[in-house]
């Protein structure tokens, strides 16, 4: 193989390559011997003609996830000093990709009590990148979390699975299993076997607002989401959004709530920042692998719905999510207040598309709200506006 950097004998080349692999391992790329073996075999069976060919041989064998490509490119560049290697457009990172947020001048975040009757114009849209710790969980919370977990499991609607399960007496006749049994009885069908489609829980999709306007509730809202990921057998997917969308399902995977929240704090960079609900939802819809998670799922948006500036994008995107999902619930910390009425432009606009607008600001209110889910799933769709009778009984139409 020719040395892509153009100097040195075989020994030096090998040393260089091993150094490169070591640097990759430090970045968490291609740690396994199998990947390294592939890399060397690839170089052995077909020597790269030029730097670009070398780059591609290394990337195809060593990288197994598109998210790792930027890190790989950085290491590759620093080891082989190739300024002009064919920098392929690395597609948007999976876990966090920026949503261009309109810059606003107002960063002020109103306390909920004041914001109740606000127009939404005060929700900031500045991109503040910060992480924060979410505080300890505590014993009383731990008890509540266990209750929440059980409740999630109880309230989620079920569908019949596409995966057949053998059964002794119910369901359709399982010809194969029956025939196999008949082999034992001399080709005579004596015993029958059946197949059923057992129920499975519908998946849950949680979109949790972590912007500054819900700052004080964020830790509990994330704990609520964590309980959902632990409980839902169909798999709960959790995204956070402030000024950008972040998929935090993997970060929430740890069974311990405290550790999971710490992981989320590291993963999410826009905690307590501005709000760009519309842009975040638009990104969710525009990414096919995200959007397909909404299909047939119970979608829950946890947000105060205070969009900065023009709500049009948020309204359109909410409608799309409502159409894709099985039910769309909106949990707002503001709706816990006794005198709350959904009159801000954002919430009033999305209300006709919601199946429920509920108040959730901490774990007890979350538990209470969860108990409404079976009712919401039992009644016709888009009935949320009936629970807020004095707001605007006319179903608004803003489709055109």
């Amino acid at each position, binding site marked *: 193989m020719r040395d892509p950097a153009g100097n040195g004998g075989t020994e030096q080349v090998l040393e260089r390559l091993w150094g490169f692999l070591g640097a990759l391992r430090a970045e968490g790329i291609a740690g*396994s011997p*199998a*990947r390294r073996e*592939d890399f060397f*075999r*690839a170089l052995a*069976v*077909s020597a790269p003609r030029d730097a*670009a*060919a070398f780059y*591609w*041989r290394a*990337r*195809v*064998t060593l*990288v*197994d*996830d*598109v998210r790792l*490509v930027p890190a790989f490119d950085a290491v590759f560049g620093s080891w082989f000093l190739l300024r002009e290697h*064919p920098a*392929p*457009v690395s*597609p948007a990172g*999976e876990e966090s990709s920026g949503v261009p947020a309109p810059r606003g001048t107002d960063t002020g975040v109103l306390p909920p009590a004041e914001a109740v009757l606000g127009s939404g114009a005060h929700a900031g849209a500045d991109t503040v990148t910060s992480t924060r710790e979410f505080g300890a969980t505590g014993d009383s919370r731990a008890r509540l979390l266990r209750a929440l977990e059980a409740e999630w499991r109880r309230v989620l609607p079920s569908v019949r*699975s*596409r*995966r*057949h399960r053998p059964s002794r007496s119910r369901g359709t006749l399982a*010809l*194969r299993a029956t*025939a*196999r049994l*008949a*082999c034992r009885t*001399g*080709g005579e069908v004596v015993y029958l076997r059946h197949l059923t489609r057992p129920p499975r829980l519908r998946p849950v999709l949680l979109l949790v607002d972590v912007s500054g306007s819900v700052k004080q509730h964020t830790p509990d809202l994330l704990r609520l989401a964590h309980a959902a990921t632990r409980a839902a057998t169909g798999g709960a997917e959790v995204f956070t959004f402030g000024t950008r969308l972040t998929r935090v399902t*993997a970060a929430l995977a740890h069974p311990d709530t405290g550790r999971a929240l710490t992981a989320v704090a590291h993963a999410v960079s826009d905690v307590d920042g501005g709000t760009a609900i519309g842009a975040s939802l*638009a990104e969710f*819809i*525009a990414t*096919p*692998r995200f959007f*397909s*998670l909404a299909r047939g799922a119970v979608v829950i948006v946890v947000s105060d719905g205070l969009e900065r500036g023009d709500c049009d994008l948020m309204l*359109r995107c909410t409608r*799309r999510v409502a159409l894709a999902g099985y039910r769309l619930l909106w949990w707002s910390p503001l709706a816990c207040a006794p005198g709350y009425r959904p009159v801000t432009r954002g919430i009033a606009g999305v209300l006709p598309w919601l199946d429920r607008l509920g108040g959730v600001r901490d774990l007890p209110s979350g538990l209470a709200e969860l108990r409404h889910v079976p009712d919401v799933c039992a009644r016709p769709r888009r009935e949320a506006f009936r629970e807020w009778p004095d707001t605007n009984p006319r179903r608004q139409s803003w489709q055109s």
Partner: protein
Amino acid sequence: MTAAGPLDEYRLAGLLAGQGYFADEGLLTAVHLALRLGKPLLLEGEPGVGKTELATVMASVLSRPLIRLQCFEGLDSAQALYEWDHPRQLLRIREAEAGTAGGTDDLYSERFLLARPLLRAVTSEHGAVLLIDEIDRADSEFEAFLLEFLGDFQITIPELGTLTARRKPFVVLSSNRTRELHGALKRRCLYHWIDFPGSEREKAILEAHVPGLDVEAAERLVRAVTSVRRLPLLKRPGIAESVEWARGAAALAEDGAAWPQAMRAALGLLVKDEEDTRLLATKAAELFGDA
């Protein structure tokens, strides 16, 4: 495969282009290495960038049969690997009873085995091209069934023993990334992310797939598609859509419409979303040139 030596990237590029598939250097390297190292190739990318198409084209390049396994929720080993032909086994037992056939010792022999896609790929005489499409739609447990096959191209049937491929199949897995695949599966594969093509390559694709498209029109179409992809659309058009659109517009232009109008009229083939259509309608003049 043609007999003349190994397929390097140059020859591969030529052969694929002959079938109307224009791959970039990364994809060529991935295919080349998959063939040389005898490993499966895991492809990811936006919908409509040609993941599935690659397998189809490779089947004709290698002159091997294409075997396709479409994944879905609930897919199990009986549908993907193999299945015993129980009705025939029953008949066989009856025959043995009636004395018209020998014993029942061969009940679990290859005669009574129904080969499903993976087993067909293993037993295929000249090696096959196997496409495992949208692997992310199958349950994550299903991936475990694939590991033995992807690692060694063999399938173990308890009653028969292990069947190993006489000639390694060329295996392409495609995924839309709706869920994370297991590390064990990825480790057995080479990985490549297919990106949207550059404008030169897209032009070549259009010219190959749309008969009678002149150079100027192709350029115009590619320019438009490139700028459409830059817009904040809910679903960016893939290559499949842009080819369809070019065909539609070309057909209209042949009937005598001017190109800008033809492009506008055929927009439904490029963008399949009501909101995106409306957005494009507002920008039609700058995108497609004045009518």
